[in-house]
């Protein structure tokens, strides 16, 4: 596989005003690269959900977007509290978000399920007390192996 084009973003923790900036920037970049609209939509939604998760739960983290010839890979990494039960966290409606977060319209327990729904492959590596890394792939149209 050839060397991918990379974009790196730092995601600030507990800052709901700037939450989503990295995803909106990625959307713009992909548009400039004339990617197809549905691929852009899937990548930016999955990335936004991950970004919000890092803002809510992990005091921020990093987001890397890698453009391969056949796919777009998103890697979200944080050094937050980790996810104790990944299978439980993947269930729609399950959330550990606090009331102040819910008041903003987040914490519906749809973040991780949406990330899975909008990507072709998702892997979660998480260790309690150490942090979480989520890797997602969205294949480009006609390139889904």
């Amino acid at each position, binding site marked *: 596989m050839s060397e991918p084009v990379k974009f790196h973003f730092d995601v600030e923790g507990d800052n*709901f*005003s700037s*939450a*989503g*900036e990295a*995803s*909106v920037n990625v*959307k713009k970049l992909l548009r400039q690269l004339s990617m197809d*609209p549905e691929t852009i*939509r899937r990548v*930016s*939604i999955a990335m*936004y*959900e991950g970004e*919000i998760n890092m803002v809510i739960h992990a005091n921020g983290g990093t987001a890397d977007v890698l453009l391969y010839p056949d796919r777009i890979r998103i890697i979200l990494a944080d050094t937050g509290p980790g996810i104790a039960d990944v299978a439980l966290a993947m269930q729609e409606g399950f959330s550990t978000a606090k009331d102040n977060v819910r008041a*903003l*319209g*987040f914490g*519906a*327990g*749809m*973040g991780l*399920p*949406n990330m899975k*729904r*909008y990507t072709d492959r998702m892997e979660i590596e998480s260790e309690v007390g150490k942090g979480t890394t989520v890797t997602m792939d969205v294949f480009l149209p006609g390139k889904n192996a």
Partner: protein
Amino acid sequence: MTAKELREALALQVLSEPDPDRTVTGGYAGDLLSWVMGRAQSGDAWVTIMTNRNILAVAALADTACVIVAEDSVVEADVTALAVEKGLNLYRSSLTGFDLCCRIGSLLGV
């Protein structure tokens, strides 16, 4: 129908209308942002009572045609300014979300 035509037909208050010719193809109602993000379709008129600035990120990423704030829910000036900056149509109405959806459905023939 375009966002502007929808706005005129429903007598919506314009908070931001940088993209009046955007085609409205459907509608979606909801206030839980992740839920909306996962379910709203590109081109939808999104009806909500949420007014924090995160609705703009959701509208931009889900690619909705416009956001309609129901029941005259208060929208802060910085949110309106950000909608203009991001090129997002943002309207407001005194109607309830239910009434807005009924009328949008009737206008779109769904």
